């Protein structure tokens, strides 16, 4: 019981020490920081030592060496390579031949490059393109979250986004589409009428247009990332629409995480008030 109590007091002391940083830097924080750095570095090395070096390297390699002496080849003998590369890394401590440490480094970088190339090709590029191949217009029952009321309001939103985007592409600051203004206006008016008709139509017979927004977002987003063309003209307009989508993404993800970040702090305050001070039951 007594040691538990000491543990709680130490934990509370360190908790408040870190929190005091919010007011300003101070010796209490410095102390907590110093102990955190020291402890965690020790913690990581000890865990790595047992869980990587001992469990993954030594436990596989040493039996393999023993069996080699008995004249048998064991696949695990390949771990020798890892050991040698590790030791090469340490040669950095001997400056004249320190450059040898570049060899394990190139193994690491080469391996990382190879693995990431494949992984991102498969899971990011190919799969994301695949899931974007969707109908841009569907009948609403095929989408789960949306129900009749949502479809209509959703479509009004879709048309609003379309009109604003088009207006921006035609008249925006960065755009220099070489058309006389009346022609631009004419296009815009036609689009406006089309969207109004679409909205009206969607009231009577709901079509789900969310696919169109996703398509536009991905398309314009990719245009934003294009390096080989200046962001002017049609390209500039589309890229700007792309940044809007990125901004919605950032805003939404930000807003979405606020709640769970608050809960992290609730956990600490709960510790202080309930476990330590016991002022709340």
């Amino acid at each position, binding site marked *: 019981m007594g040691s538990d109590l000491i*543990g709680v007091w*130490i*934990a509370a002391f*360190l908790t408040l020490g*870190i929190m005091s940083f*919010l007011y300003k830097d101070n010796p209490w924080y410095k*102390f907590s*920081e*110093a*102990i955190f750095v*020291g*402890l965690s*570095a*020790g*913690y990581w*090395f*000890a*865990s*790595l030592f047992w869980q990587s070096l001992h469990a993954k*390297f030594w436990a596989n390699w040493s039996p393999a060496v023993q069996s080699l002496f008995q004249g048998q080849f064991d696949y695990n003998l390949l771990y020798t*390579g*890892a050991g040698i590369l*590790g030791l090469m890394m*340490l040669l950095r401590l001997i400056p004249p031949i320190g*450059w040898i440490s*570049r060899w*394990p480094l190139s*193994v*690491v970088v*080469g*391996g990382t*490059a190879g*693995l990431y*190339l494949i992984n*991102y090709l498969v899971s*990011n*590029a190919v799969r994301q393109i695949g899931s974007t191949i969707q109908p841009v217009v569907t009948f609403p029952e095929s989408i789960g979250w949306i129900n009749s*009321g949502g479809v209509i*309001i*959703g479509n009004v939103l879709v048309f609003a986004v379309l009109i604003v985007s088009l207006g921006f592409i035609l008249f925006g600051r960065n755009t220099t589409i070489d058309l006389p203004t009346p022609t631009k206006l004419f296009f815009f008016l036609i689009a406006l009428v089309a969207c109004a008709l679409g909205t009206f139509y969607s009231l009577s017979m709901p079509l789900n247009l*969310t696919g169109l927004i996703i398509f536009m*977002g991905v398309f314009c987003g*990719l245009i934003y990332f294009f390096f080989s063309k200046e962001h002017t003209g049609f390209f500039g307009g589309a890229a700007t629409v792309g940044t809007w*989508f990125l*901004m*919605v*993404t950032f*805003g*939404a*993800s*930000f807003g*979405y*995480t*606020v*709640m769970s*970040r*608050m809960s*992290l702090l609730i956990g*600490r305050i709960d*510790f202080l008030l309930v476990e330590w001070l016991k002022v709340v039951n």
Partner: protein
Amino acid sequence: MWRRTVPIMITFIVGTVLVVAEFIPHKPFGNLGEDFSLYFDIIAVFAFILGGGNLCRVHFSKVYRKKTDWQFSIVTLLGFFVMLAAGLFKIGNPEGIQGDVTAAGSLFADLYDSMFTPLQGTMYALLAFFVASASYRAFRAKNIDASILLIAAFVILLGRTPAPSLIADFFAGAGITFMATAFNFVPTLTDWIMDVPNLAGQRAILIGIALGVISMALRLILGVERTYLGSDSK
């Protein structure tokens, strides 16, 4: 040659083999990716000796030269060596040196629970404060982009609380059905933003990242990019 060309060749060979191995199920290529991460873990432990050594050197010299805040360097060193010893020698481990390093009851586990966990948790919890101050500063309608950021964030923030339905009830009670409907719509709008424009933006970012990674990896494998290898001579 040994300092520059060989490393570039190693990068090329290792990188190419790992890419090709993805398409070959046959031994020993099938598991090459896993083998690589194992190799990496082992190299990383050896390398830690360099990092840990650097940590000690920096703090020893701080203490030795009595630089500002040298007292705290003693605390760091103390923490480091106590935790290291507790872990490496498994002090107080109920099952002795054979036991798991994190076994309950050992000094290592005790230090972890009473010091490491609260420090880690509190540092993480600071996010609650920073998320508030960052949103106060960043979510201002300075221009179109910032306004979109603000609106999206605000709708999501609102939609994640019970507030919209409470406000809607209030308006319904006051007889302003128009506002009540609007606020009742907020949760749907939240879902719509998450499922549609947010998803589209995420996809564009992910596809872009993938192409960036592929091109970067090729530059590394082909030796076009070699900054990480350091100097040519001397």
